[in-house]
């Protein structure tokens, strides 16, 4: 079982791939960083992130939209719950 910190690091790696345009911001992000307002995520970035998370963590998301996740911490919490 991955720790929250390990999930966060693995997620950062995915985010870098999902939206490499903001690499500096993502490298310096924390759990309070907002996906849309801080990182400028759009619908394609979110789709990319969701698919990459499913593939990397071996979990399946319920129906999700951009509004379901405000911060990176929200995503970590979702993954954590799914891995349990």
């Amino acid at each position: 079982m991955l720790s929250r910190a390990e999930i966060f690091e693995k997620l950062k790696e995915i985010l870098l791939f999902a939206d490499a345009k903001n690499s500096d911001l993502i490298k310096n992000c924390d759990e309070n960083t907002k996906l849309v307002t801080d990182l400028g995520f759009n619908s394609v970035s979110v789709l990319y992130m969701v698919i990459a998370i499913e593939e990397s963590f071996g979990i399946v998301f319920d129906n999700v939209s951009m509004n379901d996740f405000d911060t990176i911490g929200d995503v970590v919490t979702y993954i954590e719950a799914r891995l349990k």
Partner: protein
Amino acid sequence: MQSPTKEIFKKYTDPEQFGRIVDRDSVSEMWQYSVDRYPDTVAIEDDGKTYTYAETEADVSRLRTIIKSDGDKVLRVGIYCPNSYDFVRAFLAVTTLGYTAVILPAQLDSMTVFGCTMKYGLDAIIYHPSLRENTAIVAEKRPDVTLIPSDTQGDTLTEMVFPSGDTPCVIMFTGGTTGKSKGAQLSNAAVMQGTVNGCYGYRDVFHQRYLLILPLSHVFGLIRNLTTSLYTGSTLFICRNNKDMFRDIAAFRPTILVAVPALAEMALNLSRKFKKNMLGDSLKAIICGAAAVPPYLIREYHKEFGIMLLPGYGLTESANLVSGNPEYLNKSESVGLMYPNQEYKIVDGELLLKGRNMMSGYVGEEEDGVYDEEGFFRTGDLVRVDEDGFLYITGRIKEIIVLPSGENISPAELEVKFLELNLIQDAQVYEDVTGNGTHILALEVVPRMPEIARLGIENIGQHLTAALEKINNALPTFQRVSRIIIRDSDFERTPSMKIKRYKKC
């Protein structure tokens, strides 16, 4: 100028299949032919169920019974459904009665749906049960508009009607060339020309496996995905949620995918990250459009997976397809050859169109400026045509920058030059004013970080600036930019994911 005949596409398609690409006058004519010829082939796969052409027609026929008016009145029927078998059934039922389908995107709210009943004079709306709440205002204020749940079935069968080609078939929303939302009315002949145009320029056309990820409320989804699939006796798998796209691909194994460039790029990057072809081994072609297709995507798909990424150009007003590029590798910046049955002219760089695929007009709108004095539709797109007849989009009229010297600069044309550099993800050329009041051309770019990381480039700013300057210095003097900015974040985007253009002057 007359567009080429279909013979120009002959060499790209299997000869036997090319002979089967024939024009049809109406959706009814096309659908009857497909039902007769491919009755046991699966037409639609949705939500775990399959529907053959014959089964679909039986369902469509029962829905026709519900919709059909008592007299001879030709109706306008709204279709308010998300991507689903119900949408397909409703579209076919309405159009094969010779009625007009008014496509109401599923994201419309209740007031807008109500507004559409007024603006488009709707007689009925076929709505998906999941959208029932949004029809409440219509039920209350417009009792004359019949509301039909999309899962309704009549007890008896009703035959198709075969309207003439000029009978209105569908009204679709478009931003138009002025940016204001309008309803473009397409005749049966226009829809069928758009449908047939989707058959040109690649080898295997019939009996394909299409995956639908685009909204059917968009002309690219409705015509290039749905009706071309039905015309060619193919199977259409409806992906209900784009996040399941790759699972659906693994299960369905599509041979053709119709996608916007952003999705094609996402699939490529995910394939690289997970070191497997996320689009599956069966995929032969990606039909790519609705936005500019970066040439590097075409090359990378060919190199890494042997997949044809075929760019094209079209508008809602032209029933989707104006041109398609069968020479996608040799002329990767082009949107291809003009499809048959069109006339075109280029006036001050702008493409003007007339032809069988063109809309009959915007519904309930003034037509000032939409057409020229000879009835050609003004696309608002700036183009050029090369010596082989291939079309290139060089910009949009309203985006043109007129320099103090009087020279016209098309930002899009310049951006394509800089985007040739694989290390650039996006670019924007704009006019700016310096501190001393001089008007200059400026360039901002977003680096393509995966490529930069792959090549191990360390000083990104210096490296990119040098590479961009090299391109810049090769341009004619008046086109050269005076300032280059390397961004560390994406551009601001419009809701449709296009770059929001700067207006600094």
